């Protein structure tokens, strides 16, 4: 039994922030959950799927975030409690529906859980989702520790039902992927019954059709939507998760939320200034409860706002402070605009410490300077950087090897439009720097469709694009349809590694099994592309010769969009993980290292972590612990020194 459904009230478990959110939703009796994988959010749907049978839950990995939100909204319309989850970039994808949903309102409690990634630790940007709450006029909650990640989630379902609208909970990497003690509450016995009441009058929120249709009468829906937000602000005045700790009248009031709460707590502890500063930790960051803010602004003349990335909370507090100035007096603010906290990258206790030291003029020396200097010097000389690369045995390394060589052989300066997946590393030397554009999900094919039409203006370069199998369903299909319809000549290399690999191998519409382990209708990518009208070829990227040959043929021949499906399972997939196809070894009598004229092709250029260089003997070696046994390196060695033997 999963510890997440431990029904002993008061028991404590060590939970990841993401697991705490799951437990909070379970304690609220959630029934329907949907999402699209994206670090750092993916554990949430994974966890729901594992306990689906025990708690009568439906969980799905949807085709994309917009569909996930729609699936969860349908459950809400039918009276159930539901949750959709995505990383920050996914909120952009879902935002079109979100704007309409915020307008139509919801019935059963519904949450949007977004996991932002300040510092872009596992994202292509650190774009933030908080601004969406303001933009589409819905409440925003941000848990300040792990217990709160659970409790606030449970509370949010009630809030959603009180105001009849979707509520957004925003986590960050250092909350979602960090862990802490969480004390469990009771799990309710739910007897869900789904029914969609839609026969009542238009705009009747209980019985009518749920629609977002304002036409020329914004007061009919937009007015009531804003009243919901005002009601939320009133409820936030007494929200138990907004807390103040510190003296009645501190020298400095720190206002913070989310993981920054933990950094602030740590910094105040390190500097031993508990008697000088007060901490207002806000869980309800939009809309801000005005009376609570006023009471706390009255405490001090100096206010320090600690948050990550954009000055969102800072801006919202300043607006209130301007309105309240006649009563509270004029405040001095510290934060992003004052230059005390950066607007780029994630925060940590040290950044908060150095800001506090400047604001309060404290003499603080954090570390032993001699040690610091010597340890840094040691790291400089002894700890070479660990650049990102594809896993040993990754099919993408082989694919990019072939793409790189096919473009070189073609000789017309072709380029690849990249997309989102592990293959973003195609921009780096680990992918032979083959990828030359990189933006959002599906954008590689869209850009390629556009580049393909530039021939009339003189663009003669062959246009290529890559996308993964999950990305294909998520957002590349409309771009491919566009290219085919408009006869835009480009070659899409569909890197089919049989799952959403980057985020932990989640299933997608092409998978035969869904996240709950139920048989699913696997949609055939090849058949889709053919039906759309593309010329389609399939190759195994581990077969370098055939892949390059097909690629060159497709680049030179045929009109319109062409698709080369490069099909080989991810090295970490259940079907390949821990199973070597080949035992690979280097014959030292044949490998003559630097002298063979290949410029150490296998180690210096191919760059698989499974091949290492023996500095003493000046030959290549296979690290058998790391090697995944794909055997591709045996095919690139010009003298046949790398041997592969099929594992019996």
């Amino acid at each position, binding site marked *: 039994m999963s510890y997440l459904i431990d029904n002993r009230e008061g028991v404590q*478990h*060590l939970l990841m922030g993401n697991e705490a959110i799951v437990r909070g939703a379970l304690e609220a009796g959630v029934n329907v959950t949907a999402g699209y994988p994206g670090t*750092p959010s993916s554990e949430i749907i994974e966890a729901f799927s594992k306990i689906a049978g025990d708690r009568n839950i439906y969980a799905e990995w949807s085709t994309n975030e917009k569909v996930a939100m729609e699936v969860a909204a349908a459950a809400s319309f039918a009276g159930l409690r539901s949750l959709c989850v995505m990383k920050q970039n996914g909120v952009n994808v879902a935002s079109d529906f979100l704007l309409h949903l915020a307008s139509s309102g919801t019935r059963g409690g519904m949450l949007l859980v977004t996991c932002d*990634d300040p510092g872009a*630790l*596992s*994202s292509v940007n650190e774009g933030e989702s908080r601004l969406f709450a303001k933009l589409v006029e819905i409440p925003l909650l941000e848990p300040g*520790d*792990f217990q709160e990640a659970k409790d606030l989630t449970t509370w949010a379902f009630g809030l959603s039902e009180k105001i009849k609208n979707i509520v957004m909970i925003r986590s960050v990497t*250092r909350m979602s*992927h*960090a*862990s*802490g*003690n969480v004390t469990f509450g009771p799990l309710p016995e739910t007897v869900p019954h789904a029914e969609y009441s839609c026969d009542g009058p238009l705009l009747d929120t209980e019985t009518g059709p749920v629609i977002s249709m304002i036409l020329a009468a914004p007061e009919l829906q937009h007015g009531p939507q804003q009243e919901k937000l005002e009601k939320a602000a009133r409820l936030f005045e007494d929200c138990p998760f907004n807390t103040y700790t510190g003296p009645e009248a501190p020298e400095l009031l720190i206002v913070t939320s989310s*993981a920054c709460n*933990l*950094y602030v*707590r*740590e*910094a105040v502890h*390190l500097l031993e200034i508990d008697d000088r500063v007060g901490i207002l930790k806000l869980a309800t960051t939009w809309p801000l409860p005005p009376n609570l803010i006023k009471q706390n602004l009255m405490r001090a003349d100096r206010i320090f706002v600690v948050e990550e990335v954009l000055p969102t909370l800072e801006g919202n507090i300043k607006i209130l402070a301007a309105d309240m100035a006649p009563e509270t007096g004029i405040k001095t603010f510290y934060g992003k605009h004052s230059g005390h906290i950066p607007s780029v990258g994630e925060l*940590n*206790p*040290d950044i908060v*410490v150095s800001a506090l030291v400047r604001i309060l003029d404290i003499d603080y020396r*954090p*570390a*032993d300077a001699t*040690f*610091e200097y*010597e*340890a840094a010097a*040691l*790291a400089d*000389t*002894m*700890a*070479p*950087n*660990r*650049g*990102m*690369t*594809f*896993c040993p045995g990754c099919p993408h390394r082989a694919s990019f090897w072939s793409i790189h060589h096919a473009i070189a052989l073609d000789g017309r300066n072709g380029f690849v439009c990249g997309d989102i997946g*592990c293959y973003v*590393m195609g921009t780096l*030397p680990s992918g032979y720097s083959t990828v030359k554009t990189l933006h959002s999900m599906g954008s590689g094919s869209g850009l390629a469709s556009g580049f393909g039409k530039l021939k009339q203006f003189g663009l003669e370069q062959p246009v290529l694009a890559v996308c993964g199998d999950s990305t294909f369903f998520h957002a590349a299909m409309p771009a491919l349809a566009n290219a085919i319809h408009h006869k835009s000549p480009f070659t899409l290399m569909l890197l089919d590694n049989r799952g959403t690999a980057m985020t932990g191998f989640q299933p997608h519409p092409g998978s035969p099994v869904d996240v709950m382990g139920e048989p699913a209708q696997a949609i055939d990518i090849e058949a889709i592309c053919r039906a759309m009208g593309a010329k389609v070829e399939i190759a195994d990227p581990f077969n370098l010769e055939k892949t390059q040959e097909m690629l060159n043929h497709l680049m030179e021949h045929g009109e319109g969009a062409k698709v080369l499906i490069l099909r080989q399972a991810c090295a970490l997939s259940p079907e390949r993980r821990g199973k070597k196809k080949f035992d690979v070894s280097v014959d030292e009598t044949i490998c003559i290292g630097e002298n063979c004229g290949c410029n*150490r092709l296998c*180690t*210096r*250029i191919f*760059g*698989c*972590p499974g091949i290492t*260089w023996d500095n003493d003997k000046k030959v290549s070696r296979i*690290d058998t*612990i*790391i090697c995944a046994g794909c055997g591709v390196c045996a095919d690139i060695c010009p003298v046949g020194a790398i041997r592969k033997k099929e594992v019996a």
Partner: protein
Amino acid sequence: MNSTRLSKDPYSVIITGVGGQGNVMASRVLGSMLVNNGFSVTIGETFGASQRGGSVMSHLRISETSSWSPQIPKGTADIIVSLEPIEAVRVLAAYGNPGVILLSNTRPIFPVNVIKGDAAYPSVEELKKSVRRLIPHSIFIEATEEALKMGNPILANIIMLGAVVGLNILPITRENFRTAIGERVSPDTVDLNMDAFDLGSRLGQQ
């Protein structure tokens, strides 16, 4: 019997290594052992791109009272456990101090720029000497070699965990480990994990 109190609150432990070495598992097991003994534990993990050859690091904060920052303030680690030798040096520079206790595996995993010949990997003997000059309390263990003798290199993380517990500094015991590992691995591999743990405890005390 180990101590039942913390010498410092919060007490900070870093477990570091390279993606795929079982770093996250080790931090979760250690964290569970402490939570089961009534402590408040916060773990911060950086593992977003770790499966693609990157460094990976877990920060554990142990307290009798509350959660702390999932990122340890610079220079304030109490114990650093490294599953890979150069990662030990890297973490030492950011979070070390003259009083830190360091336990490191000796088996290198070469970064791709070393494989390519763009950077040099130090000799492990040189590295040990330099680290010992900086940190009096440093222990090096051939954990991967020992794990290979036991049949699976992944057990290196459990050997290193055994070495940490064997220091008798943290308020946890061998029995705590049995409970925590039992919740995470299949019943038929518990004994093997216990053997790895016991071996680590012995090696850590040398």
